[in-house]
């Protein structure tokens, strides 16, 4: 390796948070014109590294070299000055402003008498968007665009700042396939243009599609760096978890019993009418593109949103829940799409988070039975392998995987007949993923019905009995998971040649 094409080099970078080492003498380098994938489970230290590069955190020891020169990155502004651009998982844009205004944020052009130069702003925005080949009207209000498009705007902003070192943090987490493909093209173009890209991701397919080199972090340490063409995916996963992984998706098929969940002509905003059943011991997956109505349908069943028509029955009894409360009472439970916004009380303790939906059962005359609560909560935590010492910690301090387990544990407390899981493993590390799948198996063994919404196609196929593919609010195809391929699902989800409405905009 010659040193002149190395854009960025970290040597022995160490970061300590209190008593624990978040990064332990980590080495890393990035060359011009390469995509360097950075992988590892949650808590491996990837995000700490990113924060240090972004100037949001300071290293405790070690060197950072840009173009062979030692640098200090004390603030996001300094990071930008060194040509480092960070594209965060969450969007840092203003949804109520136009695309052009967002792109000009902080550097609004002025005209000769000092007023805002709107026309110049739109012109500059067009140029920036053209640079990343994004076909977006800069005069549109950002919030009206799809998440994928918004992310393009975010990237356009980062790229236009003469960035040569780009750090992308799980950029495709919220994107549909078509949007992800567009992002991959963009990554390819920037690489050809001589930029270096650090690509943080959980998705192995992405790593193999994009990366030139792969670096694995585990528990704050650099485990290894490999060229993609010299390593097998299994080796990378092994490096990540520190042990061999058998087949990740294990689904024990049960002989399906009676119908537990019976949904007939259910309709609501953006959905329906849809009709389907889930039998005891069965896992049914709603698949489809973002905006196809999967999540919306699941929410109607649970009562999170109100249905305009249709009937939902649980074990033969009409439920038609108008509120989650009614749904829960009828034996339904739902782990929603976003655990942080919709499921968890982040500053509250793990115990409080897990017990909250079962307090009717665990109180007498409204007074909490604290010993019983503690017993029951710890029993569920043990089962999900959440360490007991977390009981009184704020749930926000757990890793993504453990937070998701806490969200699940809440419903294990209630023994629902039907468990709805919306994106059950998004942003969850492999160890926790496996445990969630095991739990699903355990539930179906005991005759529960499970309805899963998933964008992760291998997961959708791997853990379900049947897949219901949705498009434009309707179920367009039912597939047997044993026979279905990812291509089959995509074929029906996209309606073959037709593009999804949510991604194109006139």
């Amino acid at each position, binding site marked *: 390796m010659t040193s002149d094409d190395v854009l960025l080099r970290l040597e022995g970078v160490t970061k300590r*948070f*209190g*008593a*624990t080492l*978040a*990064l332990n003498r980590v080495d890393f380098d990035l060359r011009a014109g390469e995509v360097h994938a950075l992988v590892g*489970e949650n*808590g491996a*230290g990837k995000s*700490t590294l990113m924060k240090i590069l972004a100037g*949001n*955190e300071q290293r405790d020891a070690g060197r950072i070299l840009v173009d062979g020169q030692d640098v200090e990155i004390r603030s*996001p502004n300094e990071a930008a000055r060194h040509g480092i651009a960070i594209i965060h998982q969450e969007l840092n844009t203003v949804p109520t402003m136009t695309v052009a205004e967002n792109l000009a944020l902080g550097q609004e052009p002025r005209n000769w008498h000092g007023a805002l130069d709107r026309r110049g702003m739109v012109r500059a925005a067009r140029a920036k968007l053209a640079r990343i080949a994004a076909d977006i009207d800069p005069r549109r209000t950002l919030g009206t665009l799809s998440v994928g498009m918004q992310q393009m705007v975010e990237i356009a902003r980062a790229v236009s700042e003469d960035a040569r070192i780009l750090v992308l943090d799980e950029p495709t987490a919220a994107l549909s396939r078509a949007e992800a493909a567009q992002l991959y093209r963009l990554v390819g173009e920037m690489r050809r243009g001589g930029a270096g890209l650090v690509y943080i991701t959980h998705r192995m397919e992405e790593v193999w599609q994009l990366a030139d080199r792969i670096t694995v972090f585990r*528990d704050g340490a650099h485990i290894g760096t490999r060229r993609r063409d010299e390593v097998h995916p299994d080796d990378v996963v092994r490096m990540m978890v*520190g*042990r061999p992984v058998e087949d990740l998706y294990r689904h024990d098929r049960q002989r399906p019993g009676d119908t537990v969940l019976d949904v007939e002509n259910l309709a609501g905003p953006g959905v329906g009418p849809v009709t389907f059943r889930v039998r005891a011991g069965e896992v049914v997956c709603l698949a489809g593109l973002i905006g196809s109505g999967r999540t919306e349908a699941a929410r109607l069943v649970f009562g*999170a949103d109100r249905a305009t028509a249709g009937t939902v029955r649980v074990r033969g009894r009409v439920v038609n829940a108008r*509120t*989650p*409360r009614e*749904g*829960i*009472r009828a034996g339904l439970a*739902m782990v929603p799409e976003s655990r942080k*916004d*919709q*499921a*968890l*009380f*982040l*500053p*509250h*303790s*793990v115990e*409080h988070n897990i*017990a*909250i*939906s079962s*307090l009717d059962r665990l*109180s007498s005359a*409204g*007074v*909490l039975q*604290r010993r019983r609560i503690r017993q029951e909560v710890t029993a569920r935590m043990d089962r999900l*392998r*959440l*360490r007991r010492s977390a009981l*009184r*910690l*704020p*749930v*926000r*301090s*757990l*890793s993504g*995987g453990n937070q998701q387990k806490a969200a699940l544990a*809440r419903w294990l407390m209630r023994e629902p007949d039907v468990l709805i899981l919306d994106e059950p493993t998004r942003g969850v590390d492999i*160890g*926790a993923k496996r*445990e969630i799948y095991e739990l699903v198996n355990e539930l179906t063994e005991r005759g529960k019905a499970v309805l899963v919404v998933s964008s992760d196609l291998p997961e959708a196929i791997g853990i379900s009995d049947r897949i219901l593919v949705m498009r434009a609010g309707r179920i367009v195809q039912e597939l047997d998971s044993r026979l279905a391929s990812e291509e089959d699902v995509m074929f029906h989800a996209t309606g073959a040649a037709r593009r999804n409405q949510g991604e194109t905009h006139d």
Partner: protein
Amino acid sequence: MTDRTLDKAELTAPRPEQSTPSFDFAYWWDRVGILVVLIALVVLMATIAPNFASIDNLFNIARSIAINAILAAGLTFVILTAGIDLSVGSTLAVSGVVAVLAAIGGLPAPVAVLLGVLAGAAAGLVNGLLTAYLSLAAFIVTLGSMTYLRGLAYTMTDGQPVVDNMLGFRDIGNGYFAGIPVPVVVMAVVYVAAWFVLERTRYGRHVYAVGGNAEAARLAGINVKRVITSVYVIAGACAGLAGVIFAARVVSAQPTAGTSYELDAIAAVVLGGTSLMGGRGRIIGTLIGSVILGVLSTGLILMNVPFFTQLLIKGGVIIFAVAVDSLKQRPLRLGRRTGGAAPAH
């Protein structure tokens, strides 16, 4: 694989970014910080203010803080749900007027007292229903009710104080129970009850949940609208109780009673560490916050600090306390708000 369980244990072990450091300022400040401030203040006052530490004066302080402390107790419920109630001062006036007029009208003292409290609860119910079911901003709703309730108090009394020297429940303001001023006893009962409800009941958990994340609370099966309505009723009832005590102390119905008391009450809640964003805080903190404000006022008076200067000092203390509380939320970090290991509920 035999060592598999061990590996699992490792996976769930503390994650590097999130464990508790050896000395966690945020943790300790949350537990005892405000108490330390109070103790320091008391020591300071006892040293420099004449007669501060005498029993009589301590009782006076306790009696004088009771009204604000009771208002603040009710307000704590509201603020825990990320709401606000600006109308408690006006509610106090209406309740006092109702109780005194009822007593003058010949109703027995306990009934008059009850009516006063119920009037406060009713005012709170209106606030709560408007906020929860019409999804109006609590700030605006209670700004409105602050005004109309004050108008109501003036209307009911023709704008004049109504004095009743024979007031049947005057002991609630001026009497002693086992040697302790009655308002202080009432305050203690209110705080024990509030503590029990918030810490030991299902309803209390629901209050924290709604304030912590309203949408998550709804999806967890909590009747969010009912919880929101109820906290305003509690705040109103507390204001009603405070109004009765106020009326009893001055042995009259005062339409101007409690003007701008809501601000002192909010200050006490926030000083006590309850987050205006909801979901975080403790009732004991509110009590300490009220005591700090009371001690400060009384001490400054004893020290003959001019009134204008008192205001300067009080305002400064409030901002200082809230600033310290906020700094602990985001140690050493600019921009993104990711709290430290604050104790959880």
